[in-house]
């Protein structure tokens, strides 16, 4: 069962939302609705599900309804229509007591504008959620300290929010949410004020949380790299509606429309694309053949290396043309001349991890799956072609040197 399920969720700002809701149902656009009725469509009939342990990233234009959507997940904003099921229970129809229970035990939120309590010290801010739950003072101080340490603000416990820099304040907000150890973390541009180093630490922290604690995280960001790095799935919003949902790669590689394409075009593809995206079919040979056959094969397919695999396609090594002709002269077997130190990658490794090796290796690196089977090889041209954003990368084909 998905942990969060959103069905036809809609929010309209204004005094008479139902009127605007009807217009919306008739398919009138957000802009027209605003111009005719002065009502703003915040979120427009959005549906999706989030599985437990998933990091669900929401991106989209400024004003497209991301914050509104996330705030409706814990009903800080009352939806105009639709349902939000948290663990199967509809949060919209809960009474105050139940809602409180959910907010206390299951969700915590990091706010876009921090929303720290100015009258409380940092540590008291971080303790807030625990205090609300009634955790006893010692335990909650400990947890809060841990949480503060996690975000790198140890030692500033007794300062007040207005004595901190913007990024520090944001981290306090983060620590406050983390201290609560909720099942679901709602993070509204939670890293926007952080520098790259701390941001990366925080991202790692999130990934850690997800893996070790199976936390579910809903994450709003404007940073594509960030979305790619931590997102299991990404939803792209525009004018209150979701334009596309999918894994980062799906969205990068198969943008649903021009808008999505424009949106993602600036991304650093080397962090998205993996070895499996750029690998080509290798020419292989089994060790029971002789060097002559190998040379012939190279010549036929116009390559200068062959990969030696056993019957289950396990990689044994590589054969270069020079070595093969040498072997013919000296009468040695393929096993004897096989180059054993072929660089090897796993198919899910990102391109940026490949650069160094691929740039310097003499023999194209091999891509080998979990089971040790050879799946493909990495040619420099293919890497560069993939980075250029051209779509030809997935076709396998020989290097035409």
């Amino acid at each position, binding site marked *: 069962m998905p942990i969060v399920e959103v069905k036809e969720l809609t929010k309209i700002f204004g005094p008479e939302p139902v009127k605007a809701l009807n217009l919306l149902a008739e398919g009138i656009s957000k802009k027209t609705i605003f111009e005719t009725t002065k009502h703003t469509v915040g979120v427009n009939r959005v549906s999706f599900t989030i599985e437990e342990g998933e990091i669900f990233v929401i991106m989209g234009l400024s004003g497209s309804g991301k914050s509104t959507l996330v*705030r409706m997940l*814990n009903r*800080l904003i009352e939806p105009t229509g639709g349902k939000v099921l948290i663990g199967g229970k509809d949060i919209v129809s809960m009474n105050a007591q139940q*809602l*409180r*229970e*959910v*907010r*206390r*035990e299951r*969700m*915590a*939120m990091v*706010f876009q*504008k921090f*929303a*720290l*309590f*100015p*009258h*409380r*010290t940092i540590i*008291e801010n971080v303790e*807030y*959620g625990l*205090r*609300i*739950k009634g955790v006893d003072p010692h335990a909650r101080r400990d947890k809060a300290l841990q949480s503060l340490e996690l975000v790198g603000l140890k030692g500033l416990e007794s300062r*007040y929010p207005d004595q901190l820099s913007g990024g520090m304040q944001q981290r306090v907000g983060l620590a406050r949410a983390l201290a*609560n150890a909720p099942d679901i973390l709602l993070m509204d541009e939670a890293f926007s004020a952080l520098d790259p180093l701390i941001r990366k630490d925080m991202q790692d922290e999130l990934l850690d949380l997800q893996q070790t604690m199976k936390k579910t995280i809903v994450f709003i960001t404007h940073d594509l790299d960030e979305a790619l790095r931590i997102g299991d799935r990404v939803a792209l919003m525009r004018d209150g509606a979701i334009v596309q949902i999918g894994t980062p790669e799906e969205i990068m590689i198969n943008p649903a429309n021009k808008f999505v394409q424009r949106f993602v075009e600036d991304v650093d593809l080397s962090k998205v694309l993996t070895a499996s995206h750029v690998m080509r079919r290798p020419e292989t040979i089994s060790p029971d053949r002789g060097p002559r056959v190998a040379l012939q094969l190279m010549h036929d397919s116009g390559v200068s290396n062959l990969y030696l695999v056993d019957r289950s396609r396990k990689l044994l090594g590589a054969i270069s043309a020079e070595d093969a002709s040498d072997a013919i002269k000296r009468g040695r077997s393929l096993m004897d001349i096989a180059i054993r130190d072929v660089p090897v990658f796993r198919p899910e490794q990102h391109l940026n991890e490949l650069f160094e090796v691929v740039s310097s290796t003499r023999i194209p690196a091999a891509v080998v799956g979990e089971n040790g089977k050879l799946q493909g090889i990495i040619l420099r041209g293919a890497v560069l072609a993939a980075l250029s954003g051209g779509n030809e990368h997935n076709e396998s084909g020989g290097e035409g040197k």
Partner: protein
Amino acid sequence: MTKLPLDRWVERGVDWLSVHLRLLFDLLASIISGVVNAISSLLHLLPEWLIIVLLIALAYRLGRWKLALFTAIGLVLIWDLGYWDPTMDTSALVLTSSLISVVLGLPLGIACAGNRVVQNAITPLLDFMQTMPAFVYLIPAVTFFGLGVVPGVIASVIFSISPTIRLTNLGIRQVPDDLIEASEAFGSTPGQKLFQVQLPLALPNIMAGINQTIMLSLSMVVIASMIGAQGVGAEVYRSVTQLNTGKGFEAGLAVVILAILLDRLSQRLVGSDRRKRKGGLRQAAWIGGAVIVAIAAAGVYHNVREGAAGNEAGSIGETVGNRIIGIDPGAGLMKASAKALQDYELRNWSLLEGSGTAMTAALDKAYKAQQPIIVTGWTPHWMFVKYDLKYLDDPKGSFGASEEIHTIARLKLDKDQPSAYRFLDRFHWTPSDMEKVMIGISEGKNPDDAAAGWVKDNAATVDEWVKGIPPASGQKLKLALVAWDSEIASTHVVKNVLESRLGFKVDLLQVEIGPMWAGIAGGDADAMVAAWLPTTSIDFYNKYKGSFEDLGSNLEGTRLGFVVPSYMDVNSIEDLR
């Protein structure tokens, strides 16, 4: 457009309250006076220097040396100027009323902030309480609570509670939305939200409200002194009425010093500096709570000790709360009743002052519930027709013999209005006649109609009265009356006859008994038919003797006395002992 009889309503309302809520008022009064007395005796118990030292120490702990210095100078000055004792009295009063204001005002302010309907309901009420002049409700307050410190406290609270409520409300409403959201996102209960977020952030405003509450309740001390609350206020008032500005200033200075001290200490107690405020609010709530409990306990104790002296066993006295419901304090009946209480040595009985209306209202209420009640009564009165009542025997004759009702005219009426004079002189009827009119009125008939009805039904009698009297031609005539049911009946009958049979234009002047006599004596009114004699009106009769003409009785066989419903098992005033 006829004037709305608002004044009448209010007076009736007050009368009604004073009869029906007496228990509540007594309870309130004993609690408040208990608290004030507890504080005051505490303050008087400790020697001056000890209080001064304690307060300086507190000031130093809470504030900085500046506050301590001010405390020292201020208190020593009060001491030196000789206002120590009254200042302590005033402190007790002001502490009590500020405490009540804050304890009631904070929750009300919070309620206003939470709910627009509550706010809309309370705001005009606050305006009312703050601007209705204290003088207006001081008199009823005396009726309800007696003289002294209690009505003073109540008046102070009424006047000074407003800023606390208003500014608490405003402060909470100004807390930024995003912080409220943050608090809610963590699942705060409304209480948690309130105590952890809203109140701390509204604190500067709330403290401004409390400051104003303290200031205003101190500004009431002089007015409170006018109804007997002792303290510096009384000193000020006394000095000032002697045109002794300097002394007044000195006493006023004591008030000012007290105000500043109370204000600064309370502000510091909560902590106005956000940086130190942290636990402040909770700490203040605790301290406040403890103080309230302690004082309430002291008050209850004080009360119980006083009360224990009171009641014994299940006598009649107990069933009616040792009270006899009386009428207007000026009436002779009341005097006679007081005399009766004295004659029969009914020491712990009290005679409740009120009005004829209030008395019958109380009787009606008790009768319907078949509860015991003792009232002061007189015949003729419609109540004897309507209810089954009996007079208590009066073996000592405190209420005297039966009375007559006389007609009294101003001097020279016989010259000026001979027709009227002749009719008035002849006017004479019986208690049963009168009761017929009275019962009609008491059942809701307009007095004029009731009188007209009687005149129609008794044409023969009336013909007798006016036989041979030449009618006037629209001359004016002023009849005075006092608003007792019997007098309303008789006066309206007289009026009716004068108008319908004799062509006069009659104005009725309903006044108090004193002014009624004064009016006749001064010639402001022409006549009245309401002179109960020889008991009820005797003082006035004697006082104005010579300034009026007594036309003799118009009704005999009246009676005064204590009256009970006949279902009560008591027969003589002696049984009340």
